[in-house]
């Protein structure tokens, strides 16, 4: 029976066209019992291949093609754990000493690392072909002899491939002859590069991308034919009918390949405890200390829960893991880095006690099994949120320091071909001209939602492209086929893996683009699937805002804020949430959240948890939102799916909203154990397979029947679970987020200046542009000071004045001003104040003319002279003068005359309000002055345009006219083609709803105008105010406008 022992997947990056999963399933369908994956210089696809093979019941042999410095590649197959270690270390060594994406081994390195490896002589890129090309028959003999010395005669196989090529057949003849004379075994392989013949097209496209060619000029670089697909044993037997031993040897060799990824040899590091205390005892002590701090010594429920958890942790031998995460958190605390655990870890009372998470799972009755279960047999998942930027980097570097360069690494992020980038690259290969390329790429729609009329045919017709053109049709076929194939390896944003001992013997390591970083060849999911523990150190913009806010409050309000000790029932916070006054707040600031808040009216912390979780695809797709809100408002009776589920669903008024509830339902209604319930969630998760879902559903129904739940109720429960499992939000996760949301709301309500300054200093983040954040803060009474070169810092700062605290906008908002130049300005200013623009130019020579022009046009130079205030045009006039070299002859004269020159009268008129506004927006993207709509209000009032703030007082159903700057445009996938706009005027934000028909008609007006005037029917329901647009017109008042947050 033939076994394919030389196959490349798409993880050979541009040298293979099938995913490991495709290869495995094709292998199985062809009736082969095992197969070897040999990707180029890596084990990138190995875990996926192994898991896919395991699922369909075939054996996955592991190996790699390893490039050597002379240029050929050794196909190496792993026979034993030792061989696997050797291969991983070999690849790591060659990768780490070279630039990203490069690296090759020396032949002598193989000598010390050949144990447990079998070497084939390869195909076109193999050592035999290379020897034949360069040194003829004698060269081949020498090559085979050398391989026999390095790997041992019994570990070298002379490989034969037959792709109907005359060239290859000549090589085979030489190989057969010499194999005979040297007594080396022959081995038939097909040098597979794709699973199916048709995938040769993708391979050709990849070849072009690799060589920077297009199909029409790639010539003989392309495949000669489509024969490198996975062939059946029957086909291979026929091909090698004259050499039956070459086929027989495949089976024999496959039998020697005993290693599988099951024997990975990964061990989690041991936490070294003081005084030789055991890890478990040490954990117990830390937990007890924490519990007393969190719960007090007498909390019986908490004590019981913690005991239960600790028992399981001990049983699963996970104490070390908890201690290592605790250690990272401790490091962050000690170094004033804000940190909070999220994800399923929030379900654990141990994590809460250790200070890893901030949500009380006992108080909130969270499901521990969602975090850890005996049945699952996998490592728990703890994600730590850190302030994005330098602080997070410090935490990462701490882990590197603690576990060593080869003991810790970032997980990889496999970048795949997707959407526009795929379209563009394929278009290029097909030689489309740049304009057509842009057109074709734009067809890969940026819309989240595409209506049913947006068929391919229509899109093509609209773009003026001919569907009957063979090349254009090929383009789309290829675009579809290439989707999700790996393109290159990136670095995951925060996932880190750590290992006891040498991580490089578990998985090959590579240098990342970022200096000092090392990544493993597997992505986050693969690491988890292989049982490698990862800790996610995630950067969260809002954490950075909270941290910055705390520092600003400390400095200016002279108060110390401890986020763990915020009052939990602050009236101002709940009032703001109930009014949907949430611009800038974490998680609850989106348009959809805002339209839900006045109906949900959060009154306690748990309501915020619900609020965070309810506007998600799960509850929306599962049609849970309206029933919940109706029940909350008393318009619908609170009914549970089944009486037995009442306790589970009572907190959410009988409507399942969280993943944990789903698991509990399965446990209660179908008698699932915690682990089985978690298994159910995974079956319906991202990597869902129809067969597995069906299997779980049968089990679920069977379980419910045993509990006496049948008929309609059973269907309802199954329906709730299936529609919800994929998109549902875990309650623990929602609770962690709700904590941050509450903290952000608290800071905004009580320390607006600090919160706003911190928000502005951490952009881009969140939903709104800085211009909108400033206008919102102004409406809340905060005063801003414009950018002033004599006062502003790089970041936005807080100034104290008689009117209270106000925010000075920082130089970071000056468009085009480089940070290093700004820092030079500040350094010079600190040394001695500037006296004139000429002085500024001379003392900061790196300041470019364009930078000075922007500074002048936004009024940042108005106060540069202590003698008199300049207007912006005066400054612009001076800037042009200062920027021009006076020439050698007049240089001395100019220098002596500086002060006179700067105080010279400018012949230009000052800017008017409108011009200042435009200059502000062009130069900074925001204004601290009036809103662009303000100066038109009298005229707008006359035209019957209502300000946004008045809409709330108007009757539902009345006809209204509103106008403003478009700050958000959205067309969510769940909204059936409806478009939502937010129009901002000087009084607030008006929400607009546009029907799909109207949008289709006025598409250009909606998309291309910064200001709109909209007439429509006011909808004022339960305090949710919106205008259903009837007529949409562009509103021309000024070119100033911040860019809208478009279609996200």
């Amino acid at each position: 029976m033939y076994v394919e022992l030389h196959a490349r997947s798409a993880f050979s990056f541009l040298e293979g066209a099938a995913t490991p999963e495709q290869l495995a399933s094709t292998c199985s369908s062809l009736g082969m019992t095992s197969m070897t994956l040999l990707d180029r210089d890596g084990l990138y696809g190995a875990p996926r291949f192994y898991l896919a093979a395991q699922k369909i019941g075939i054996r996955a042999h592991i190996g790699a093609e390893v490039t050597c410095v002379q240029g050929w590649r050794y196909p190496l197959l792993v026979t034993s754990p030792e061989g696997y270690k050797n291969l991983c270390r070999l690849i790591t060594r060659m990768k780490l000493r070279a630039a990203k994406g490069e690296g090759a081994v020396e032949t002598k390195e193989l000598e010390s690392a050949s144990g447990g490896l079998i070497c084939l002589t390869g195909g076109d890129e193999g050592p035999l072909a290379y020897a034949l090309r360069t040194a003829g028959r004698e060269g081949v003999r020498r090559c085979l002899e050398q391989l026999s010395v390095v790997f041992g005669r019994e570990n070298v196989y002379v490989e034969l491939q037959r792709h109907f090529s005359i060239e290859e057949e000549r090589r085979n003849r030489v190989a057969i002859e010499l194999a005979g004379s040297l007594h080396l075994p022959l081995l038939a392989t097909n040098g597979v590069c794709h699973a199916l013949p048709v995938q040769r097209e993708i391979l050709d496209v990849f070849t072009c991308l690799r060589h920077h060619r297009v199909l029409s000029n790639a010539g003989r670089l392309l495949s000669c034919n489509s024969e490198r697909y996975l062939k059946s044993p029957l086909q291979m037997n026929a091909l090698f009918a004259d050499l039956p031993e070459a086929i027989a040897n495949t089976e024999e060799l496959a039998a020697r390949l005993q290693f599988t990824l099951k024997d990975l040899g990964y061990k989690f590091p041991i936490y070294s405890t003081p005084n030789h205390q055991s890890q478990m005892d040490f954990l117990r002590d830390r937990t007890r200390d924490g519990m007393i701090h969190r719960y007090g010594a007498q909390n019986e429920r908490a004590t019981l829960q913690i005991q239960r958890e600790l028992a399981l942790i001990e049983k699963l031998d996970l104490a070390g893991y908890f201690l290592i995460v605790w250690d990272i958190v401790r490091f962050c605390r000690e170094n004033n880095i804000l940190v909070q655990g999220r994800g399923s870890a929030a379900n654990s009372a141990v994590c809460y006690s250790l200070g890893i998470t901030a949500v009380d799972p006992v108080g909130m009755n969270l499901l521990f099994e969602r975090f850890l279960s005996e049945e699952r047999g996998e490592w728990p998942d703890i994600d730590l949120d850190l302030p994005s930027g330098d602080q997070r980097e410090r935490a990462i570097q701490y882990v590197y320091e603690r576990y060593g360069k080869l003991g810790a690494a970032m997980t990889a992020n496999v970048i795949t071909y997707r959407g526009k980038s795929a379209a563009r690259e394929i278009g290029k290969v097909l030689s489309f001209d740049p304009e057509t390329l842009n057109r074709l790429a734009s067809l890969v729609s940026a819309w989240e939602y595409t209506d049913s009329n947006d068929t391919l045919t229509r899109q093509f017709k609209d773009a003026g492209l001919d569907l009957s053109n063979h090349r254009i049709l090929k383009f789309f076929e290829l675009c579809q086929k290439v989707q999700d194939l790996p393109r290159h390896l990136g670095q995951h944003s925060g996932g880190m893996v750590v290992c006891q001992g040498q991580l490089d013997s578990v998985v090959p390591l590579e240098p990342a683009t970022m200096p000092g970083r090392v990544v493993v060849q597997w992505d986050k999911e693969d690491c988890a699937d292989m049982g490698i523990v990862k800790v996610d150190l995630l950067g969260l913009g809002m954490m950075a805002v909270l941290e910055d806010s705390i520092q600003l409050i400390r400095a200016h309000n002279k108060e110390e804020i401890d986020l763990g000790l915020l009052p939990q029932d602050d009236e101002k916070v709940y009032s703001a949430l109930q009014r949907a006054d949430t611009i800038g707040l974490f998680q609850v600031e989106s348009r959809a959240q805002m339209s839900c808040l006045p109906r949900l009216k959060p009154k306690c912390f748990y309501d915020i948890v619900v609020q965070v979780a309810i506007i998600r695809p799960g509850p929306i797709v599962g049609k849970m939102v309206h029933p919940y809100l109706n029940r909350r408002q008393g318009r619908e009776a609170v009914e549970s799916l089944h009486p037995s589920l009442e306790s589970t669903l009572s907190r959410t008024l009988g409507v399942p909203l969280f993943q944990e509830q789903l698991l509990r339902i399965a446990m209660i209604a179908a008698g699932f154990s915690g682990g089985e319930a978690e298994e159910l969630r995974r079956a319906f998760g991202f990597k869902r397979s129809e067969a597995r879902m069906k299997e779980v559903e049968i089990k679920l129904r069977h379980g419910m029947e045993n509990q006496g739940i049948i008929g309609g109720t059973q269907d309802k429960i199954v329906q709730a679970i299936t529609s919800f499992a994929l998109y549902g939000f875990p309650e623990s996760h929602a609770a962690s987020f709700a904590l941050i949301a509450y903290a952000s709301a608290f800071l905004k309500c009580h320390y607006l200046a600090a919160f706003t300054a911190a928000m502005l200093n951490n952009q881009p983040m969140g939903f709104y542009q800085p211009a909108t954040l400033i206008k919102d803060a102004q409406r809340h009474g905060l005063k801003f000071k414009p950018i002033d070169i004599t006062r502003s810092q790089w970041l936005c700062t807080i100034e104290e004045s008689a009117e209270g605290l106000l925010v000075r906008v920082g130089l970071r908002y000056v468009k085009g001003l480089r940070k290093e130049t700004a820092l030079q300005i500040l350094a010079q200013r600190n040394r001695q104040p500037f006296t004139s623009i000429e002085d500024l130019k001379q003392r900061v020579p790196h300041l470019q003319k364009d930078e000075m022009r922007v500074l002048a046009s936004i009024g940042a130079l108005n106060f540069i002279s202590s003698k008199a205030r300049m207007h912006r045009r005066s400054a612009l006039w001076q800037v042009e003068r200062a920027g021009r070299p006076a020439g050698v002859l007049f240089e001395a004269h100019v220098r002596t005359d500086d002060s006179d020159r700067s105080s010279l009268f400018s012949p230009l008129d000052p800017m008017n309000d409108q011009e200042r506004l435009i200059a502000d927006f062009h130069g900074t993207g925001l204004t601290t002055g009036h809103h662009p709509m303000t100066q038109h209000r009298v005229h707008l009032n006359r035209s019957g345009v209502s300000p946004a703030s008045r809409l709330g007082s108007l009757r539902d159903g009345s006809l209204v006219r509103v106008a403003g700057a478009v700050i958000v445009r959205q067309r969510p996938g769940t909204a059936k083609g409806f478009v939502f706009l937010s129009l901002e005027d000087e009084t607030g934000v008006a929400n607009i709803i546009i029907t799909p028909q109207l949008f289709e008609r006025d598409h250009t007006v909606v998309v291309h105008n910064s200001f709109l005037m909209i007439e429509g029917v006011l909808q004022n329901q339960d305090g949710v105010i919106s205008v259903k647009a009837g007529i949409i017109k562009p509103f021309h008042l000024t070119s100033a406008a911040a860019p809208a947050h478009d279609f996200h």
Partner: protein
Amino acid sequence: MSPAALFAAIYVPNFILQAIGRCEPELRTRPLAIIDGPPPTYQVVALNRLAEILGVARGMTKAAVTQFAHVTIRTRCRVREEAAHAALLDVAWSITPRVEDAAPDTLLIDISGLTTLFGDAEAIASEIASRASTFGMNVQAAVSANVETARIVARALPGPTIVPEGQERRFLETLPVSMLSPRQELSDIFERWGVTTCKALASLPVLALSECVGQEGVRLQAIASGKGIRPLLLAEPAQHFEEWFELDEAVDDLEALSFLLGRLLDQLSVRLSARALSIAAVRVNFELQPAFDHAFDTSCELLRVKPSARTFSCNLELPVPTRDSKLLLKLLRLRLQSRPPDAPIQKIRMAAQSSLARVTQGALFVPTAPDPDKLELTIARIASVVGERNVGSPQLLDSHRSDAFHMQKFSIAAAGVNTSESAAKHFTNNNLQNSSDHHSTTEAPVIALHVFRPPVPARVRLQGSKPAFASFQGCSGKVVHASGPWRSSGQWWEDQPWQEDAWDLEIIFSGESPARHGLYRFCYDGIQEKWLVRGVYD
């Protein structure tokens, strides 16, 4: 009249539109929009008032304009613009030889001292307008003692405008600064300064302005004040020679066409001779009568996506420049005989590429080569018999397809080099040579393949998957040895992919005594499902 300098500016408003309207006057009375841009992103670049009233605007996409049923859409035609510009130059040169070609739509002319010929300044301006209208263009003319003032006023104001001397500033002051065509950087500075009109610019202090924006700013300020003085940059005579001929009745007879071609060639030849130049190449573009199936289909979309054969071109590239119009006519006739256009001809556009006449003779020790003119004529005669694509020097293509080559134009100079190069390439590419192993080439006898072009159709009977019996060209025989298949395929991204299995067959032909053996290269074309004989091994 005073002998003082006097200049006129001629400006064609909406030039792109007028260039189209000049050739199709009937369009002037209809709403018209001109589109331009790369194919899928056509946008309106010019439109007339009628279209504007209907709501069409500049920058609209073609798809948006097609929603206006009454608006005629034309694609921008740069050739027509060039022709319109040439006509505009003719207008100017008919007034005075002192012409500055300021822009495609603007000419400046020196009309000093012309009053005795045409009358006063107003009369000259009217004369210009009137002559332009006979060329099919409406122009705006302005006369001023200051050339820049004339240019700006002509662009800004309709109708003939006379700017009295000393009144320049008054005419300019309300005009926007952009009329002065400042560089982008200056334009941005003026915008930031709030200097929007010529008056505002003129009122700035000169010295300070010079300090701020340099001499360019000062120059613009002088122009804005009506004071800038400069000489005219006189236009050079054109180097491009082109003749057009449009027929009322389409011609489909070569004799009649030869007459017209002869006339055009004579004209070109005379024009070039006058400048001591010869013709290095002739490019003739014929616009053909639309074929019947396209006659009712005016959809530009269709035309763009599937370019119909509405144009036909015939190019002559001469090995040495010539002025012999008779030789050129013969070459053109031979070309048209071998590859005639497939529809009657409506329009002829003939362009000549000029070159200096040949002034040197061949080197003394270089072997004599055929006379280039005669050689060209001979090649053209052969091409007319065997087809243009079948004459020249073969060049191998970089492809897995065996025997893929294309014909390059034959030239004596390149012939020597080409032959050796292509032979070398062929050697390295030929599948029969064991290019990968030069050692084996010395061991194995080298055999050559005589290629049949075109390949010979054959019939092959298979036994299992191997050929067992083959027949072609009346011979048939048993296959005694078969080697293959050598499989190749490619160009899957084109309309015409290829796929073939090649076999090397040793055949014993039946019915011959003594039995004749032959070694052939057969191939099976997988797309056409046919067997072919590619060649025979020597």
